[in-house]
């Protein structure tokens, strides 16, 4: 791992964490429930990208499966919450 790649992974992870903190502001501030769901979906995507970059940093393929599961369950959670806000129940 060269210094360039090390610095780039560090920078990318820092950017993703900064983006998650900014999205957390939106999640806490609202104002509507759908804003919070959108912010949580964005935090999921950024967490998944962080895991992928950690995989490059450690040169390990194991992180990929965790990232795939995060993408999948992030979608399930966001879609269920949006459905709940639309109908008042998650499963019809």
């Amino acid at each position: 791992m060269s210094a360039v790649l090390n610095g780039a992974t560090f920078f990318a992870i820092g950017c993703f964490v900064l983006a998650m903190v900014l999205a957390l502001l939106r999640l806490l501030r609202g104002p509507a429930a759908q804003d919070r769901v959108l912010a949580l979906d964005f935090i999921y995507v950024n967490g998944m990208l962080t895991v992928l970059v950690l995989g490059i940093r450690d040169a390990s393929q194991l992180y990929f499966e965790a990232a795939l599961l995060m993408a999948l369950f992030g979608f399930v959670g966001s879609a269920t919450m949006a459905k709940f806000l639309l109908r008042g129940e998650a499963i019809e």
Partner: protein
Amino acid sequence: MSTAPAWVEFFVAALLVVAGLLSVVAALGLVRLRSFFQRMHPPALASTCATWAVAVASTVFFSELDGDLRLQAWLIPMLLSITSPVTAVLLARTALFRARQHGDEVPEPLPGDAP
């Protein structure tokens, strides 16, 4: 330590930096835009461009590391390209529904459209 050629490391590093910057731009949009229908757009930047950049970086890095083509990281942007429009449409319908319940100025439902 790894013996990757310099251009591979620079390419992967550039893609990772671009992905990080795109993600921060999307987060700034999420915080700063004024209405929900405007705020729906920035997260797509993270779930398309940034995810593709990280997936291509991962593909190049692991292909070089293993000396063989490793394309499985592309599954993630492919999955997101199917799932994120579903989430976006559901959230947009939610926002429209709740705005109509609230009596805000939003377009009327189309004839024959489900409520």
